[in-house]
């Protein structure tokens, strides 16, 4: 039950984009049509769903103060917490490389359309943000962390698909010339985010 709660919470209430603005760069740049948005969303779900639990294990068995007690009791006082940024980003970068190679092999058309943004998943704030939120919230088990990572990914994908769909339609509307493109995308995101605030406080 708790896991379902975390899952729903990470999709709707603590949505990566509409509540924390993480991953905005690729969110704005790759949301011009739905198909590419779905592709990138899938990649983000995969990377988030895998890296958050991996980082959770690293955090709790290596980096935290006293986390290395399982190796030998003499290590109980060591606190490598300050290394966590470096560790997280290394895991994320390695994983992205993996996804990039897989996509290049299995779906060249998707690879061509995602272009530069695939390697940029490594610097997608949502991925590292997921790891950092996981660290901050101190989930009790690796399952919680995995569910949180997966849910955040699903929420991110949902957001980018929503905005891509809206932007596909809005191409036909009459917007002031200088507001077209980036400006209206911001304002739309803001309005959707206000809508998403109505999920606040929902608890399963």
């Amino acid at each position, binding site marked *: 039950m708790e896991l379902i709660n975390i899952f729903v919470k990470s999709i709707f209430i603590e949505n990566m984009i509409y509540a924390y603005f993480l991953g*905005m760069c690729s969110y704005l740049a790759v949301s011009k049509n739905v198909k590419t948005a779905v592709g990138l969303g899938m990649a983000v779900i995969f990377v988030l769903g895998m890296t958050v639990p991996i980082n959770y294990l690293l955090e709790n068995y290596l980096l935290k103060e006293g986390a290395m007690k399982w190796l030998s009791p003499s290590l109980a006082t060591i606190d490598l917490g300050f290394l966590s940024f470096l560790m997280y980003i*290394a895991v994320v970068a390695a994983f992205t490389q993996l996804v990039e190679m897989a996509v290049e092999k299995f779906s060249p058309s998707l690879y061509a359309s995602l272009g530069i943004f695939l390697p940029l998943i*490594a*610097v997608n*704030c949502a991925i590292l943000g997921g790891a950092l939120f996981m660290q901050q919230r101190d989930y009790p088990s690796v399952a919680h962390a995995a569910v949180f990572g997966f849910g955040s990914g699903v929420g991110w994908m949902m957001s980018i698909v929503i905005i891509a769909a809206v932007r596909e339609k809005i191409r036909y509307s009459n917007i002031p010339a200088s507001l077209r493109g980036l400006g209206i995308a911001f304002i739309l995101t803001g309005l959707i985010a206000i809508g998403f605030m109505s999920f606040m406080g929902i608890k399963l």
Partner: protein
Amino acid sequence: MSTENKEKESLFSAKRRKLITDPLNDNNPVTVQVLGICSALAITVQLKPAFFMFLGVLTVIAMGNVIISLIRDLIPSRVRIIAQLVIVAGLVIIVDQVLKAFVYDVSKQLSVFVGLIITNCIVMGRLEAFAMANKPWPSFLDGVGNSLGYGIILMIVSIIREIFGAGTLTIPTGINTVYVLHVFPQSFYDLGYVNNGLMILPPMALIVVGMIVWAHMET
């Protein structure tokens, strides 16, 4: 900015000055290049955290640019992203520890967003686009210029949000001192003026940035 430029005129040829002034307006990293949006939105509820965030980003971009530029010939191009990330992560760890040591409350307020400087697209974008191909000194200027461009947007957004959201302006006057300016006099509130609480909530940051982009494109 301008006075500083005049003092060191010799080091700043016209071309190099452009590295600093360009990102402030014509090529602003946030509104034109669409980079580094995440943090520009999340930490702009108040002026003070926004200011310290700007300082952090300034340090990381400027130093990162210099370091990458110094070792740019040594990095094999296949692993350059990881090499850049490691250097940036190292710098961010330093910034994070310094913030924790000297301005603990700000560091709490910024929470995960200090760590997210690592993935701030401006940092990676500048390393990739500029420092990998230029000498250290221009790279340093480019880093300073871009973080100033980022800082300006950060300041504008946070000032707007704080004034209308909370009716105050917290101006950092020292490391741990702030001067809280009450923008609206009490008589305003007596007449029935109410702070717009929506401004403090996350969505309004997006709308404010959207408006800034609009205004910027219009000119």
